[in-house]
């Protein structure tokens, strides 16, 4: 099984490389299959730790042997070509993959030292601790207020209406949306602009006081101005949360993250300080990707 897989992968890599025609010839494909991650995948202040994580969709393996830490107050950016498993990987971190039939995860993923795939773990509180913001803004068919209050209500975080009001206001303030919507909290969340909707989704996520926030290409459906607002917001949020962000934009990764991880065909090829990755990549495929030679 393993040998078949690595054969398939090498074939795909080889085709990609030949097409780009830009990879140094000393790099051989056979090495890529066994090479460990280059750089610094581990953190001293790890919030979430992943060790030898493999993800299978039925018989197809989409994440191969990934080990990575997400540190306290840190933004980790996941970059890599389409289909490399970035989204699949971060969806493991709050067990969103559980909802996909035929998906299997092995290896260990811990949050503050607790195995989140352990038998005694319930996904409901886990997802409150590890929040998620999606690619497309997806406000619920409710008012702005109810969108933010939804999470606190289902988790019983507020004892009274006043407390709930406070949670909603704080969350909207942190998401930088309060001043824009404070006079129309009863209007539907869908009446906001795309960028505002995405900030509403971030406020909704913050409202359940998570420890880690996962963002799956949060700006890919937004215009440049809305994108820069969200990027500033991410910069502020990291003082309180650990953030893992998937992005297709290398500029965005460079702007918002402290560490960057490069995934390629389900493998984590290189992790390191963002500045170092973008100036002195060590893995030839990372270099090829960030210089735009393929991907």
């Amino acid at each position, binding site marked *: 099984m393993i040998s078949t897989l690595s054969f398939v992968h090498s074939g795909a890599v080889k085709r990609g490389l030949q097409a780009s025609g830009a990879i140094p010839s000393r790099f051989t494909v056979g090495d890529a299959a066994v090479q460990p991650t280059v750089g610094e995948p581990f953190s001293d202040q790890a919030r979430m730790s992943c060790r030898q994580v493999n993800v299978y969709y039925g018989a197809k393996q989409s994440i191969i042997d990934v080990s990575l830490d997400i540190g306290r107050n840190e933004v980790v950016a996941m970059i890599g070509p389409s289909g490399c498993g970035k989204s699949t990987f971060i969806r493991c971190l*709050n067990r969103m993959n559980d909802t996909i039939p035929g998906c299997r995860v092995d290896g260990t993923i811990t949050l503050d030292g607790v195995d989140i795939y352990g038998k005694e773990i319930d996904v409901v509180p886990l997802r409150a601790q590890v929040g998620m913001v*999606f690619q497309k803004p*997806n406000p*619920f068919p409710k008012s702005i207020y109810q969108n933010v209050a*939804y999470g606190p209500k289902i988790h019983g975080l507020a004892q009274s209406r006043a407390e709930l009001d406070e949670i909603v206001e704080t969350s909207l303030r942190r998401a930088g949306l309060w001043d824009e919507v404070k006079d129309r909290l009863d209007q539907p969340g869908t009446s906001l602009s795309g960028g505002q909707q995405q900030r509403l989704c971030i406020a*909704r996520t913050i409202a359940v006081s998570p420890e880690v926030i996962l963002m799956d290409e949060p700006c890919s459906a937004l215009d440049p101005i809305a994108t820069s607002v969200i990027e500033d917001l991410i910069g502020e949020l990291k003082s309180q949360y650990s953030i893992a962000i998937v992005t297709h934009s290398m500029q965005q990764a460079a702007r918002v993250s402290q560490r960057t991880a490069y995934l390629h065909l389900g493998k984590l090829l290189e992790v390191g300080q963002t500045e170092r990755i973008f100036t002195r990549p060590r893995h030839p495929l990372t270099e090829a990707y960030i210089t735009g030679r393929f991907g």
Partner: protein
Amino acid sequence: MTTSTFFLAILVLSAAAYTLGLKRAMAVAKPAGGLSRLHSRPAHYATLTALWCALPALAVFSLWLALEPVVVKALVVADLPEELSRLSTGRLNLVYNDIKNLVAGNFLGTAADPALAAAAAHYRQLKTISQAALAVLVLTGALAGTVVVHRKIKPTLRARNQVETIFRVILFLCSSIAVFTTVAIVLSVLFEAIRFFQSVSPGEFFFGLKWSPQLAIRADQVGSSGAFGAIPVFLGTVLISAIAMTVAAPTGLLAAIYLSEYAGPRLRAVAKPLMEILAGIPTVVYGFFAALTVAPLIRSGGSLLGLEASSESALAAGLVMGIMIIPFVSSLSDDVLNAVPQSLRDGSYGLGATQSETIRQVLIPAALPGIVGGLLLGVSRAIGETMIVVMAAGLAANLTVNPLQAVTTVTVQIVTLLVGDQEFDSPKTLAAFALGLVLFVATLILNIIALYIVRKYREQYE
């Protein structure tokens, strides 16, 4: 020329015109420097030719259909002997009918009057002339249209625009047929209803508590004075519809939620078609089921509990009607639940919501307009349903809200009023039109409410 041969001829002629137009377009394209020099594609020129062949012919034919009987009648009547042509209009129509019957070869019962026989011969002759004239006119129209367009085909002719305009007009006419039919039905019901309200006051009809639409045929007949208070009938409809929706709305909605959110793909593949089969069962079969199985069950069950239930009851009809409506509600609700984007489910799960919280607080609000639409469709089915009620709820117009008694509905009364030989000037028959009008207005109001709700929630939720 019969109608079918006429249409066949038009079809053949326009096919020929199409070919001619195509050839002509090709021919004018060549000297101009190829097909790309033409304003439109060759098919547009060909279609334009074919349309101008068929449309004048069709116009002539329909005009002929409308005018020919009038003209022929006027000519025949003008030629009748004086003692016949001086008759009143009603008698004259009878005579004219006799003439037509003679022509068709129907036996009139008496030996034919020589004047009538002469008129019949005249009629037959006029018909022959008219047929020939029609054939000539239609052919001329078709040929003239074809020739004119054929001549006009040039690279600069804007054939595509003209063809599109003609098709837009045809589409408009087709859509107006539906509208005009509705208007015509409403008007015909309305006028008959007005005639009804001339003999029975609207106050009595809408607020009267006694429904007994039998009129005395002889003056000395006893006990058939006729009472047209429709409240018992309306109440019966409301009662049975309410029972039906009490069964159908929760069952259908919960079944839809199970099928779309919980059931595995294999169960879904079996269960959904099975539920939709329910919708395909003829209502008369449901009627058997209601009258022969459910009604006796209710009666024996009622007597066990010490309740008196009649053998035909609103409950039996309502329950079975509810079962009939379940697939409407569930199928529509299932579709709208499936149409809720996966991203909303992901967002809710991502916040740590359970499946039931997600369904109650996110999916159902998002799908609400569709669900309301499905429910109102179910209600209008219930109001309009006839067969089950005829068989299981009885005909007695009891003023009651007790579901164990026999009641009657608007639809059932319309059926009973119009079955058999009727005179169309008695209030008894005309009452059916008044009831029909009420039924129409009720469903119209339901639809308006449904549209309003759907629009309101759409503004809020999409």
